[in-house]
């Protein structure tokens, strides 16, 4: 079976010379959920933006067997649903309903179909009560859920979520885990939240200065890179204790 996403030797440099990706190899198979870990600025967002051709570097990116090139962009963008790190950028229509219907309309559905899709997606994200609100009047967590609805309404085959849990309160994070675990799509989740990742993903990869340096189970990766916030490391505690003396 062809993998859903296949990335070979991907390199990318921003205009100012920052080498954000430096030879990435990555494969995502159907039904898989993969967590993407890495320090701030290690290239995670840059990487996911390559998957639907918003940024294009050297190397090859294939989605559902289609190379991500100019001719295939429309198809590829219908197959990958991307929830951005900053929901303010994702919500740009005057009302929530119009915003969620934006994708389906671009896919060529009639208004009636698009509205139905949008309402169903809003229900899935538990945001149907806000359908007629202006997106900028929502709280940060609500914006996140509406952004997710906007992507779900397009019926993508792959979901890419960049930091989906920021701004969500603990119950909303749990809801998101439930919601995502019920969705059949393969998922790629960029997150610093290892518990959230552990609840959804089996596999994890780790980014470091534009390179994918490790691929394994979530547990393995978390342990190997000591990737939890929850407590300070013992040496940090000793240091703090000394300073207080």
């Amino acid at each position: 079976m062809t993998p859903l996403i296949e990335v070979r030797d991907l390199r990318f440099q921003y205009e100012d010379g920052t080498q954000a990706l430096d030879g990435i190899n990555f494969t995502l198979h159907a039904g898989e959920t993969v967590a993407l870990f890495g320090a701030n600025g290690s290239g995670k967002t840059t990487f996911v933006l390559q998957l639907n051709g918003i940024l294009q570097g050297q190397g090859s990116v294939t989605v559902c067997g289609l190379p991500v090139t100019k001719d295939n962009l429309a198809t590829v963008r219908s197959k990958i649903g991307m929830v951005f790190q900053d929901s303010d950028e994702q919500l740009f229509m005057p009302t929530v309903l119009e915003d969620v219907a934006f994708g389906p309309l671009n896919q060529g559905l009639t208004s009636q179909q698009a509205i139905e899709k949008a309402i169903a997606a809003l229900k899935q994200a538990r945001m149907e009560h806000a359908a007629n609100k202006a997106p900028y009047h929502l709280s940060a967590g609500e914006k996140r859920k509406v952004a997710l609805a906007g992507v779900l309404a397009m019926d993508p085959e792959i979901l890419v979520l960049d930091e989906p849990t920021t701004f969500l309160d603990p119950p909303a994070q749990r809801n998101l885990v439930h919601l995502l675990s019920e969705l059949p799509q393969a998922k790629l989740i960029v997150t610093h939240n290892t518990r959230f990742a552990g609840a959804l993903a089996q596999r994890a990869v780790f980014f470091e200065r534009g390179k994918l340096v490790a691929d394994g189970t979530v547990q393995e990766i978390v342990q190997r890179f000591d990737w939890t916030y929850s407590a300070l490391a013992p040496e940090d505690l000793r240091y703090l204790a000394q300073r207080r003396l």
Partner: protein
Amino acid sequence: MHHVLVDQWSQGSSPLHARDPRAKLLVLVTFLVALATTAGNAFPTLAVDAALLAAGALIAGLPLGRLLLRAMAILPFSVTFGIISWLAGEHLRAIALVEKSYLSTVAVLLLVGTTPLPRLLSGLEALGTPRLLVLLAQFLYRYLFVISEQAQHLRLAAACREGSSGAHRHGKFRAAAGALAVLFARSYYRAEGIHQAMLARAFTGRFSPLNPLRFGPADGFFTAVIGAMLILARIQ
């Protein structure tokens, strides 16, 4: 983010809000042409025009006082030219200039205040405005809000750090100039981000309206009746 007032008005619901944007555009054009060709001292005609505007505002549920106040934005310009005409001895023309420009502005505000801009632009496109122009206007409108939102964030951040001492005027000016540069840079990146998000959701360069335009019998009736009233008032 705060929307501009007129944009908020346009989200309301009334018989006037419900009219197809094309009907309203056609009536507006009739109004403007009729007004432009009316003599400055044809007071009965001008009174009918003004009454129609007031009735429109009332039916639309717009606050008449604030509408009239907003329209005064045109006065500094028209009064300046009015004074020039007056000094040149063309008294009638001076009065006409001020009257007509003010009534035209109220009429345009009435249209914009009862039609959400995306719909207004769909209407313009349907009436044959080139697509590029319409798309440009759509982006300008989106990014206007982007810029005003960024400006508000900056102002808030500045207010939080200003403290109570109050900087000198000179320092304030420099800070404001610096903030303006940051504002443009930030707006640019924000706009770029929005554009990326639009592309990610399969945007191909054309906004498809959720409610397609429908020119129904009520719209035809509206256009015919108001248009006839305007023309009759003009030629009586």
